[in-house]
C-alpha cells in the first residue's frame, strides 16, 4: 500500500517539507508493520534508511560485552535512522521495537538520492541529527554528574505517561532490565531504588504499570547532581 502525503505531513519531522519533497517521499516510502522485539537495525550494520513511527515504541541502544546501554526510547511520531548514511560508516547504534507498531520506511539508497535533490529534506535531516546530538549531550551529562536515583527519576519522567485519578501512569512496555539499561546501572540497583521511591511515597509499583504519585518530588530527585 502506498504511503499518502497526508500521512507523512502529520509526522512532526516531515511537517515543514515542500509538497514536491513529500510527493517524492510518498512515492518511495512504504509501510513496515513490526512486532515487539523486532530489530530495525543493529550496531555495526551498513547505513540504514529513515524510519518514522506511526505507532509503537522503539529503544535506541548500544552494546558491548554483554551489557546494553539504552540511549533513549522513541515514541509514535518520532523519526530515526540513517545516522551513518552521510559518512557511509557502520551504524553507531541499534534500534529495536519495545512494542508492536507500524513505521513508514524510506530505504537508504532512495533517501540518499532524495537528500541531494531536496534541500528542505536535507535541512530536516540536519535538524534530526542536531536534536539527537542534544539528547546525547544531556545523556552524557546525567551519566557523568548524576547518581542512580537521579537518573532513574529522570528516565521515569521521560517515559510516556497519562494522568489517572491516583497520579501519572506509566505502562510497563519495558522490562526491569530495559529500565536498568536506560539508567546505566544493574537491574538489582534499579529495583532497589524503585522500592525506595515507593517507600517514600513518590510512586507506586503495580504489576503492569508504575504510578507516579508525587511528580514534583520526582522532578526534584531528577535534578540533583553529585557534589
Amino acid at each position, binding site marked *: 500500500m502506498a504511503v499518502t502525503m497526508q500521512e507523512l505531513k502529520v509526522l512532526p519531522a516531515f511537517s515543514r517539507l515542500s509538497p514536491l519533497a513529500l510527493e517524492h517521499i510518498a512515492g518511495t516510502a512504504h509501510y513496515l508493520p513490526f512486532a515487539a522485539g523486532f530489530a530495525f537495525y543493529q550496531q555495526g550494520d551498513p547505513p540504514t534508511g529513515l524510519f518514522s513511527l506511526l505507532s509503537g515504541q522503539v529503544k535506541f541502544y548500544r552494546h558491548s560485552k554483554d551489557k546494553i546501554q539504552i540511549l533513549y526510547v522513541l515514541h509514535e511520531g518520532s523519526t530515526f535512522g540513517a545516522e551513518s548514511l552521510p559518512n557511509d*560508516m557502520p551504524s553507531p547504534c541499534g534500534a529495536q521495537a519495545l512494542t508492536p507498531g507500524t513505521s513508514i520506511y524510506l530505504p537508504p539508497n532512495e533517501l540518499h538520492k532524495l537528500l*541531494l535533490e531536496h534541500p528542505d529534506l536535507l535541512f530536516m535531516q*540536519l535538524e534530526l541529527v*542536531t536534536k539527537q546530538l542534544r539528547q546525547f*549531550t544531556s545523556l552524557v551529562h546525567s*551519566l557523568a554528574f548524576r547518581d542512580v536515583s537521579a537518573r532513574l527519576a529522570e528516565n521515569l519522567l521521560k517515559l510516556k505517561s497519562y494522568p489517572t485519578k491516583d497520579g501519572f501512569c506509566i505502562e510497563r512496555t519495558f522490562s526491569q532490565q530495559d529500565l536498568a539499561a536506560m539508567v*546505566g546501572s544493574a537491574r538489582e540497583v534499579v529495583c532497589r531504588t524503585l522500592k525506595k521511591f515507593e517507600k517514600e511515597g513518590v510512586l507506586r509499583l503495580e504489576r503492569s504499570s508504575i504510578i507516579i504519585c508525587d511528580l514534583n518530588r520526582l522532578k526534584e530527585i531528577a535534578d540533583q547532581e553529585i*557534589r
Partner: protein
Amino acid sequence: MAVTIEDLRSIPILAQTVPDDLDTLAELMVTRFYAPDELIFLEGNTPSGIWFILKGQVKIIKVGSGGRIQALCIASSGKCFGTCPLFNQNGNPANAQALTEVTLLMLPQEDLEYLMKNNIRLAWVLLKIYSQYLAQLARLSESLGSLSVSDRINDCLLHHAAHTDSQLVVSLTHEKLAELAGTVREVVSRHLSELAEQNVVQLEFGRIILLNPSALHLPCLAEKK
C-alpha cells in the same frame, strides 16, 4: 588574517569540497588564535558558529554543578567542533577550551545558516560532520553507562594513542585522562600504575607508551573508529 584555500584543504572533511565552495568558505571564515587554557566558548552562551582546528588541540567539556569535569572529546588539528544551534535556542551545549596554542577557522553563525539553506553541497558536508559527532557521543554515552572505570580508561588510552618513533604514545596528563574517562586523577594514576606493573604500559613524564595495546582492547568495542 585571511583564510586560504590551502588552510581549508588541510581539513579532511572539506577535502572533497569543490573549488567554488572552498572560495565561498575562505571568504566567509575568520581566523582566531587562543592561548593554552583560554576559553573559546561557554555552555549556554549564544553560539558564534562552527569551528575548524588548523593547529593545536581543543577540549570540549561539560561541567557539573559540583565542579567536576566530563570531557566530551579532545579534538586535534583537522577536526571541527561546535554544534548547530540553529534549531533550538538553548545556546552552546558545552564549553570549549584551548589545550595548547590553537589556530582556528570559524564560520560565523549567520553565514552557516545561509549556506545550510542555500548550498546543498555544503549542507551535506555539515550533515557528515554532525553524523560523526553523533557516533562519537553515542560511544561516550555507552562507555559512561555500561563500562567499568578501568575499561573506560583503557578505551581512552587506545582512542588517543598516536604513533611516534614506532611507538604508540598517549600524550595526555592523568588529569585529562580522568576528565575523558569520567573519573578522578587518583583513580587514573592507580590504574596506570597497575598497567605499568603488568608491562602493558610504560609511564614517562607527560606521556604514556602503550607496550601491549591488545591487552587494553574490549572485545566488542574493537570496531572501526
